[in-house]
């Protein structure tokens, strides 16, 4: 014989659905993420590339072609509670900032993770470069 014990009720018929709703709202609101991105030219400004322009990413090492460092790129992602951000999450904004600064590629990527009371911060700093010679 299977016996199903009903959930205890606190006397208020609307209490259970309301509690769940409040919990769902709290979880949704607490999933707070702040994203910031910027670029700063290290010398003269370059015109931005269109949004579809491909930008190379060098996690390690430098490109073989001669290049010029033209911009510093910053992407900052901060999440509340115990959620972490990753490089993959920052990459679209990093590429976008590279395009806006007129960079052909991104090098010297530095990641930094910090914890400030109640939130985890993930910051990526990189250098945007422009090739000084056209592709062969």
């Amino acid at each position: 014989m299977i016996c199903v014990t009903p959930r205890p009720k606190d006397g208020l018929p609307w209490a259970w659905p309301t509690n769940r709703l409040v919990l769902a709202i709290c979880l949704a609101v607490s999933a707070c993420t702040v994203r910031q991105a910027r670029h700063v030219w290290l010398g003269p400004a370059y015109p931005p590339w269109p949004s579809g322009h491909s930008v190379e990413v060098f996690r390690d090492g430098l490109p073989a072609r001669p290049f010029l460092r033209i911009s510093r790129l910053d992407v900052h992602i901060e999440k509340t509670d115990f959620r972490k951000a990753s490089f993959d999450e920052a990459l679209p904004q990093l590429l976008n900032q590279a395009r806006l600064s007129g960079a052909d590629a991104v090098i010297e990527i530095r990641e930094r993770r910090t914890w400030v009371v109640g939130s985890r911060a993930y910051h990526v700093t990189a250098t945007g470069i422009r090739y000084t010679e056209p592709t062969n």
Partner: protein
Amino acid sequence: MFQRPLADCHAAALDAFSVFGFDVKTDQPDYVEGVRPRKFNLIWGNPGGERVRVWLTPTGSEETRVVITSERAVLGMVAQKNWVRDMAHQMTESLAR
């Protein structure tokens, strides 16, 4: 006191604001002010809201006096911190590069 010209220290201050996730509210050659965006957290309430001010005074062609202050907002004070040491450290790191 940094042994660098005003423009370099100003750029380093902006870099530091960016690294710690501040929104720059005022950007002048000798003064930069930033505020950390507010967030909502179930446990800690309302992190963010700190206001950091950086005053830059050139004391020579290659020397700049930097004064940093950090203020906590009344709302969410528990989840806020003093950023003076972090800002100074980050500016030093930026200027060393």
